[in-house]
Structure formats: C-alpha cells, structure tokens
C-alpha cells in the first residue's frame, strides 16, 4: 500500500485502522505500511492520542438534578392536563355554552388561519417574482456567470467567502446537465448563490439562500411567465431551480441534484 492509498480522501485507512473497522487483509497491509513509513505511523499515533483524549476527558456528565426533573416532566405529561380537568368539572353548570361556543370558535379559528397564512402567501408570491426577475436578468445582461467553470471543485470554494453558507455545485453532466459556472445574486434581501447549468439551449439557474423555514422534503413546482420553478428546503437552505426547460426534465434535474445531497432524516416521533 502506498501513502496516498493509506491516506485516501474518500477512504482513510489510518482512521479505519484506529477504529478497528478494517477487514483482516487490509489491516495486515496497513500494518506492513506502518513498518516502512514513519510518517503514516506517526499519524496513526496522533489519531490514537487524540481519540483517547476525546474519549476519556471530553464527556460532559449531566448536571445534578436533571434525572429528577425528567421524571417530574414525564409524570406530568402522563397526567391529563389541568384544562381537561377544569373542562370536565364545568360540564354541568355551563352545558348550554357547549352549543354556542363551537360554531363561534370555528369562525374565529377560520379568520385567524386566513390572517396567519395571508402574509406568508404574499411573501412566497413576492419571492417567486424575485426569482423570475433574477433569472431573466441573468439571461439578458450578458451576466450569466461570474465564474466560468465546469469543475465543481472550483465553484464551491469560489462561493465560500462570498456567501455565508456552503453552496454545492454538483457534476450532473452524465445526465446532460452541463455545469456552466456560478454567480452571486440577491434574493429576499440577502445574498444568494446561483449555480448555472445548461441542457441543450436551456439555461438553468439554481438559486441557494438561507431560509428560516423547516425542511421540506416534497418539492413544490409552479409556473410563472412561462418559466418552470422547482423548489425545496434542506437544512436551513432554500433551493430554487428555474428554467424555460419543460417541467418533467426540470424535476428530473432537481431529483438528480437532491439525490447527491443528504436528505433530512424522517423523524421518529
């Protein structure tokens, strides 16, 4: 085994050796390498040393009293809540209210729901408009990319330092989507990264910017002024793909891109 194999970027044999996760043959090969390479042997020693320090010295113990607090909370959540008890008590004397409150409460709830979602709806419409405008602007101003490259390893570092999140460019050329480059844009009052792809004559802008919305595994699609838009959110970032490409292929693009990134895991509770 050579040093470059042993210290592979995708598979680091020294790391796996220290963790005892290697098959016997690989283990023997790595041990042989340690005998002839002081550099790798030293790296192994450093990793082991760090591993021991982390394991034996860096564990936080839960504070005194936490266990009792948890027990109290669990007992509490297993009991019916106070409101339920009050409701049961008041059932006799206030029974007539039961006939009046439900329709009234339903009406109030309906109004509140409309009021709560209206701003959000308007916001998403405004954002959609902004995305379309940014896309059109990128096409007419001869301003499609600030960095021209089909190399994902050039584009990602180009963005770092310009935006405060990791903007991933992915190589999807096998499926016909050629990477053209990257561009900085401004959407929703903040800096956005745009990764530009092209298939046949169709330009695709993939906008990435921070969002406070929860992860949305299902993609949303809509059309605006003849453009198709596909969007989703993942780990605090909103992804918005726009193009004049037909929706089926655009969804395929989104699917390919998403398949190369970790999806938010399903919640167990």
């Amino acid at each position, binding site marked *: 085994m050579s040093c470059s194999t042993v210290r592979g*970027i*995708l*598979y*680091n044999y*020294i*790391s*796996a050796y220290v*963790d005892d*996760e290697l098959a016997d043959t690989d283990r023997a090969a790595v041990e042989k390498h340690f005998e002839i390479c002081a550099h790798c042997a030293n790296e192994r020693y*450093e*990793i*082991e*040393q*760090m*591993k*021991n*320090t*982390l*394991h*034996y*010295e*860096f*564990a*936080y*113990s*839960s*504070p005194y009293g*936490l*266990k009792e*607090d*948890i*027990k109290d*909370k*669990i*007992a509490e*959540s*297993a009991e019916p809540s106070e409101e339920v008890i009050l409701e049961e008590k008041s059932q006799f004397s206030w029974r007539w209210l039961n006939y009046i409150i439900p329709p009234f409460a339903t009406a109030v709830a309906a109004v509140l729901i409309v009021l709560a979602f209206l701003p959000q709806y308007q916001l998403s419409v405004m954002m959609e408009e902004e995305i379309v405008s940014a896309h059109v602007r990128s096409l007419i101003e001869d301003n499609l990319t600030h960095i021209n490259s089909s190399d994902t390893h050039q584009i990602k570092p180009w963005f*770092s330092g310009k935006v*405060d*999140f*990791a903007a991933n460019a992915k190589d999807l050329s096998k499926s016909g989507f050629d990477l053209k480059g990257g561009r900085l844009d401004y959407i929703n009052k903040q800096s956005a990264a745009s990764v530009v792809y092209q298939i046949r004559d169709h330009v695709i802008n993939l906008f990435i910017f*921070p969002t*406070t919305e*929860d992860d949305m595994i299902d993609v949303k699609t809509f059309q605006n002024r003849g453009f198709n838009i596909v969007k989703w959110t993942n*780990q*605090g970032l909103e992804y918005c793909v726009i193009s004049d490409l037909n929706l089926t292929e655009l969804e395929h693009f989104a699917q390919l891109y998403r398949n190369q990134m*970790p*999806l*938010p*895991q*399903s*919640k*167990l*509770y």
Partner: protein
Amino acid sequence: MNKNLLIEQFESKMLSHMDSAYNLARWITGHDQDAEDVVQEAYIRAFRGFEKYTDINSLSWLLTIVRNTSYNWIKSKHDYKHLIEFDESVHSSSDEPSFIIERNQGLRQEKILTSSGNKDLLRNALKDMPLIFREVVVLHEIEGLSYKEIADIVGIPVGTVMSRLSRGRRRLQKTLSSRMNRRTRGEL
C-alpha cells in the same frame, strides 16, 4: 398498558442513557442550560413514542430524538452559525465550558495529550468545528458508537460517516497544530 407500569418501563430502559443524551446535546448546542432543556424535551418526546418503539436499540433511538430536538432548538433560536460552515480562524472564542466531569475516566489509558493547555486548545477546536463533523466525532470518539449506529442516528450512509470522521479528525489536528503555533508565537 397501565400508566404507572409504562412509566416504570420507560425510566428503567431510557434513563441510563441520560449522560450520553446530555453530552450530545451539550456539544451540539454549546450551552449547559440549552442542553438541559433539550434533554428534557427529548425525553418527553421519547416517552410519547415509547409504546410504539420498544424493540429497537434504545440508545440510538434516544440519541436520534436528542439530535433532532437540538437541531430544532438551534433553528428556533435562529442560531444559524451553528448550522453553517464557518472560518475557524475568525471564530476562536476562548470561553471555557463551565463544567466537564470526566465520565469515562474510570477506564482511562495512558496515551492522552499530556499538557492541560493543549487539551483546552483541542476542546476549543472541537467546539468550533462545523456541526456536521462535530456531531460525528462526538458520537464516535466520546460516546464510542459504531459507524453503523452513527449512520442510523444522523441519517447518512456508513461511508459518509467514515469520511466525515476522518475529515473531522484531520481538521482537528490542523486546527490544533495551528493554534499551538500561534500560542507559541504569543498570539493566543
């Protein structure tokens, strides 16, 4: 099921994992009080789902809930700097965790970083590392979980656990040695 019996079963099965739960929440949120709140909330969630999930690895299951709860906690505080990669050289705070009790110390071996100053540097390096690497390092090195268990908790393939772990280690080594150099030159 009888309510008291359910509580009893839950407590006997899950409370033994409380130190691991707290440790993970503490390393993700970075604060004592936040970690306590997260752990309490996670236990209540676990209790609500307990009847449905009795036959699985209870530690992995609890830590999955703790991790999700910690992430929601960070999001609800809009504390995005935790979720986003950032430059280590810019962000180098020196505040110390208020208490670290050496839980695993009973089994202590010889090979550990000897100088306490270096340990502090390493602790801060881990604290400042981006969350995607930090959580894997914490789960593997401190909690001693296998690649497979971590893959289940974080929701990524085993190969990704492996590469994040080795990249995380490399980052830690780099940060540690650069900070040791800076300290030697009197900058830290």
